[in-house]
């Protein structure tokens, strides 16, 4: 919330939010060290209503905005910080079920079972990494809770991780905490966002990350436990809890366990490099690549037997609106969608001589929709003109500004299925080395 930047510079602010978002505004303020800020609440919604209706809301809110604009006084008290290490320890008597109830009641579990994080098991979990338990990895949004290696281990334990999963989990969290991934907005948005963690390199075999049939689904312990731990950390340390802070309109089962899967490097067509090599790492490096996306779109194409037909199929399936790109939010067109190509689809293209770049170029040229598809109120047309040249209502708008922005991975096993992950606004892909 940029108003806090102005406050930090000594310029007072009035923030207008709709009724359902007051809690989120105050939580964000608290996380930035402000005990209270001047907020004016108007009845939800503001978006997608007529000009007359929104002007009526402005008219109704004006007296309070004017009054608080002149009279609001900050509270005299300030907040104090507590040391992030060691994590608080406490004693509790009860059954395993009682522990689970206690944790849920305190907002420390998402409602599915957790393993009690006992001191003894915690010591064992910390043996999975050479990192010191008091090391701070970063602040987990939106609460901006301080995440130490010890707290990673506490939550990993609760999610059922084994100690050997710690290096990958830590690397994935380092990726998600990078500001360019925009985890902060993703954990508070009204959208159905989800964290995506793609694993490459030797670590796949070392800890048995699933990367073939059903790689992102059930029955794969490391994928599931790591995905659960990531989301648990977002919930407990990050405070991304519905309905007041996590504002997801609908939510998703991926709020419990995020996407964690390995690239099927064994099924890369000849001449196609794995994702981490495309991103500048050595083939022998273990790397996690993270971003935040919307739920994937499935491409079920059993029929196309040329690359051109495959591209035509894709082009009718995906479009810029899936990540609200185009003239409504042109900045989204700078991001990188993930094309998770099934091995059979990839092989079909490669056997016709196509490279990843051929695929990217053809998709970029064809997966377009006309400018006239967007509401007239979208206001980023000028930015698109700067990138793509003059526009008419008939101009065909691509998903990204440049074809090389598409990331291509080989995902899953047998079948004629591929998947498209549209990026969450503001979320750039980040890759991190997995180190012990």
């Amino acid at each position, binding site marked *: 919330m940029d108003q806090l930047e102005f406050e930090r510079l000594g310029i007072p602010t009035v923030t207008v939010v709709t009724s359902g978002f007051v809690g989120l505004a105050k939580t964000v303020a608290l996380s930035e060290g402000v005990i209270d800020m001047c907020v004016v609440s108007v009845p939800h919604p503001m*978006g997608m209503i007529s000009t007359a209706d929104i002007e009526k809301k402005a008219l109704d809110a004006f007296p309070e905005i004017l009054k608080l604009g002149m009279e609001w006084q900050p509270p005299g008290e300030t907040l104090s910080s507590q040391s992030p290490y060691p994590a608080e320890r406490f004693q509790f008597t009860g059954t395993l079920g009682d522990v689970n109830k206690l944790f849920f009641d305190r907002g420390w579990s998402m409602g599915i079972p957790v393993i009690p994080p*006992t001191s003894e098991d915690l010591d064992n979990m910390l043996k999975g990494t050479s990192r010191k338990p008091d090391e701070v990895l970063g602040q987990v949004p939106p609460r901006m809770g301080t995440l130490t290696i010890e707290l990673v281990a506490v939550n990993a334990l609760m999610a059922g991780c084994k100690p050997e999963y710690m290096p990958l989990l830590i690397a994935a969290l380092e990726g998600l905490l990078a500001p360019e991934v925009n985890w902060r907005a993703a954990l508070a948005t009204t959208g159905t966002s989800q964290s995506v963690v793609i694993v490459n390199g030797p670590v796949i075999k070392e800890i048995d990350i699933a990367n073939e049939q059903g790689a992102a689904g059930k029955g794969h312990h490391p994928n599931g436990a790591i995905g659960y731990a990531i989301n648990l950390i977002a919930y407990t340390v990050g405070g991304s809890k519905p309905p007041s802070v996590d504002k997801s309109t609908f939510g998703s089962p991926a709020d419990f366990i995020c996407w964690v899967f390995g690239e099927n490097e064994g099924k890369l067509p000849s001449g196609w490099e794995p994702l981490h090599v495309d991103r500048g790492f050595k083939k022998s490096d273990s790397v996690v690549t993270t971003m935040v996306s919307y739920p994937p779109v499935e491409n079920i194409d059993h029929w196309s037997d040329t690359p051109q037909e495959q591209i035509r199929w894709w082009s009718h399936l995906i479009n810029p609106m899936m990540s609200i790109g185009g003239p409504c939010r042109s900045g989204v067109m700078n991001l990188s969608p993930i094309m998770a190509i099934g091995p059979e689809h990839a092989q079909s293209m490669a056997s016709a001589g196509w490279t990843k770049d051929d695929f990217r170029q053809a998709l970029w040229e064809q997966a377009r929709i006309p400018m006239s598809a967007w509401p007239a109120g979208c206001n980023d047309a000028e930015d698109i003109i700067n990138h793509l040249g003059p526009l008419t209502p008939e101009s065909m708008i691509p998903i990204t500004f440049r074809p090389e922005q598409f990331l291509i991975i080989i995902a899953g096993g047998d079948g004629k299925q591929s998947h498209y992950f549209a990026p969450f606004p503001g979320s750039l892909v980040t890759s991190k080395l997995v180190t012990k």
Partner: protein
Amino acid sequence: MSEQTIWELANPEGTVQLQPFVTKPHCQTLENKTVLFYWNGKHNGDVFLNKIAELLTEKVEGVKIIRGWEVTPEIARGLNQGASKEAVSKLTALKPDIVIGAQAD
């Protein structure tokens, strides 16, 4: 498992390391003051703020209005990200006395 056990447990929530700051008191009047309107690009936020600007101009003598999104259009590109330091600097250089922002939704 229904057995009563004494558990030694860790709190998984952690703490928040704050750099606390106290916000500035608001000025007693908006007369002859500069008001910066800040829109994050969400639908209708600009319409709402334009109406507030119109009402302020009518009711408050000498008030000067700045529409932030006209100075730095990137703040309204809707990436759900904070404004860049450059954008904030450009806006603060206009020396607003108060910022009125609409988060919309």
